[in-house]
């Protein structure tokens, strides 16, 4: 009985997911049917990448227990992909509401600078983290204000902070690279829990929380409505402006969390380089995941897979011995190919 009920609930949840992810067109061929599933393409791309690694990178799938936690290439990728997953999650929500946030990297730098400076000065760890996330939230509120209240174009509005954010970060760190020598500070970026990286738990918890909020409340419906037709959404009684504002605030907090993980991982804050171009990777992850930049329908899980694709690709290119300078070119080629394959969906 309970088993049946659970099955039912599962079936319902999956139909809700389908409905949220887009109309599934009835297509004749099995291949076409498979491709119509929203996650098929990003998952396919990830699997192809993993297969390449299986043959080209010896020991890619090798896992062993070392120092009480799992150790191996895949664990490393998951750990390093966590900040990008967070940034991509925030970016998905912003893009779903027809926006874009190109200040993510700068917010990462600012949050890292605040956290490291306070931690290095001997403040309590929770206080340092809270202050960093608070700073990120303020950044998001600023972006949201410019877009939702003043009506600036999102790319221009967030460009302001993209430039100013790193400047602020340098002010906080006095233009120096702040290094932290405290073991408790490193847990977030390099610690392990039950054999897996702590950062991964943080990222997945945020994704799960957002997915749940989208599904269990009307947030998902409202987000899509605002993304497709903001005027009609407002006339239907939705607080379109407040939602857009909140999307930027949320995106910045995600970026702040990513900043904490990155600074904790490298044990320092570098105002010039922390999170450099992370916004572009995040936008890329969202696109790879199948969310249209035109807003409306979105796919959170797709964005997470997109982040994994990008990180796996980086790892693969390095492992194949391609010179770092060429890495970006290879990355762009793969992205180009994946985007082409998704074109028919639009």
């Amino acid at each position, binding site marked *: 009985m309970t088993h049946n009920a659970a099955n039912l609930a599962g079936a319902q949840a999956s139909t809700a997911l389908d409905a949220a992810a887009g109309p599934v067109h009835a297509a004749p061929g099995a291949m076409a049917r498979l491709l119509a599933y929203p996650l098929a393409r990003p998952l396919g791309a990830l699997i192809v990448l993993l297969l390449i690694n299986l043959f080209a990178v010896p020991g890619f799938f090798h896992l062993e227990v070392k120092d009480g936690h799992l150790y191996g290439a895949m664990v490393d990728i998951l750990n390093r992909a966590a900040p990008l997953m967070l940034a991509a999650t925030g970016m998905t929500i912003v893009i779903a509401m027809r926006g874009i946030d190109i200040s993510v990297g700068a917010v990462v730098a600012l949050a890292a600078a605040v956290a490291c400076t306070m931690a290095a000065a001997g403040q309590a760890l929770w206080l340092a983290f809270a202050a960093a996330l608070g700073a990120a939230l303020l950044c998001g509120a600023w972006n949201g204000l410019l877009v939702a209240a003043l009506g600036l174009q999102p790319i221009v509005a967030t460009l302001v902070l993209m430039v100013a954010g790193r400047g602020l970060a340098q002010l906080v760190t006095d233009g120096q690279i702040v290094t932290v020598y405290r073991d408790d500070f490193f847990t977030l970026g390099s610690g392990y829990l039950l054999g897996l990286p702590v950062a991964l738990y943080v990222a997945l918890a945020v994704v799960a929380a957002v997915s749940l909020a989208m599904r269990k*409340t*009307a*947030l998902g419906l*409202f987000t899509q*409505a605002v993304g*497709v037709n903001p*005027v*009609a959404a407002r006339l*239907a*009684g939705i607080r379109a402006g407040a939602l857009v504002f909140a999307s930027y605030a949320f995106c910045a907090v995600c970026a702040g969390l990513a900043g904490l993980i990155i600074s904790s991982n490298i044990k320092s804050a570098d105002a010039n380089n922390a999170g450099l171009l992370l916004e572009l990777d995040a936008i890329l992850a969202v696109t790879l995941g199948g969310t249209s930049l035109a807003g409306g329908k979105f796919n959170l899980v797709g964005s997470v897979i997109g982040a994994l694709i990008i990180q796996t690709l980086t790892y693969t290119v390095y492992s194949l011995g391609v010179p770092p300078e060429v890495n970006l070119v290879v990355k762009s080629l793969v992205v180009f190919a994946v985007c082409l394959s998704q074109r028919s969906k639009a």
Partner: protein
Amino acid sequence: MANAAAPVLELSGIHKAFPGVKALSEAGLRLYPGEVHTLMGQNGAGKSTLIKVLTGVHAPDQGSITLDGRAIHPRSTLEAQELGISTVYQEVNLCPNLSVAENIFIGRYPRKWGMVDWAGMRTRAAALLRELEIDIDVSAPLSRYPLAIQQMVAISRALNISARVLVLDEPTSSLDEAEVQLLFRVLRRLREQGMAILFVTHFLDQTYAISDRITVMRNGEREGEYAAAALSRLALVNKMIGKPADPADAADVAVGGGAVAGRSEDAPQAAAARIVLEARGLGRKGVLQPVDLQVREGEVLGLAGLLGAGRTELARLLFGADRADKGDIAIGDKAYGSFANPRQAIAAGIGFCSEDRKLEGAILSLSVRENLVLAMQARQGMLRAIPMQRQRELAEEYVKALGIRTASIETPIGTLSGGNQQKVLLARWLATEPRLMILDEPTRGIDVRAKQEIMDYVTTLCKRGMSLLFISSELPEVLRVSDRMLIMRDRAACGEYQRGDLDETTVLHAIAGEAA
């Protein structure tokens, strides 16, 4: 006239299916040079689809199109244009940010020494428009001009391409009477020049004013082709609906509803019922002069006036879509000042169906169900999600009650025909169980039957106590349903009439601003 010559354009045996819907089967059309040919049919009868096949937007699954006796297969509107088939669509699709001249010549800028000849382009654009008796600054951006002028720009763009066939898809739905007359003068001149004109409209008066022949479509098929002079209005309405219509009803539609019929005796006594909405001195600088307004329980208040008289502006202020800077609103016993946003108005029990279905109503890529529950969900608040089971029930209920034609409740609303979209939007508001419903041009661009169904349903709700503020450019329609009528002119209210005093002449005089 047409009979002697061979048709310039002929479509025959056209089939077209979309996922889940058969849009056209055995559809056809013959167009002769030097005629105005009207295509009529209800919403969903396949008129738009047929035109899209003709203009290369959709490829037909089966059937042939011949132009001057040669088979053609236009694969895009551009190709159709090059073949000599120009189209002006229902929704003006020009670029509002470009100048008038650029819009006319878009894609075909005149060149001189390999560069764009801007001066020449402006001169020629001005000359083209002058042919339509329009004298405007062609270097100004298109968005500066009213919709009617934009429509004329679209027509002159179509004419600039030396067209053999001109297709006008509901060109008059946003024009006022004088502008319609202007358009008709232009069409008559083009007809004399030997152009074949295909005209799509829902207005019977206009059909008879301009058409030589009429093709009626029903359920995706050609019902028949008739000489306009030989087909009575009643017969035409019958053929469109496909059943012997209620004679009184059809006659009313056919002659334009001169007398006040329909809703009457059982309407609640206006003076006795409670006041649901009262607005005192509601206005906004430069938009609307202060208006006093009362709507009683179960009452239908009609708002009449010409396009731009301030009807929509008043509705938007009442609903909080725009902020009033003068006056206040009371709903029931509660005074509100004015509404800062639609959310407050909805919470107070007002629903508002905007006149612009596409821009302000439908959320095109969301499903019928999602569109339908949206306002109700917004009213309940984001955190109290309506359970999926309840959403489906609601949607199914309204799909049935309003006769919405859709493959399923999960179909994107954008794939529905105009009339069915309008029904979904109506249902969106009815689901919130409003005390006062504002319908702004709810029947624009939809067919006779859907119109009737929508008005029937709404007036039934009024009998149960809902109040209605009804805005329409079709005077007979306002006269038929209203208990009371507020006449607007030049952005101010200029008269109020009780049901007994209402007749078309009085109202027309009031609208025009002359003593009766």
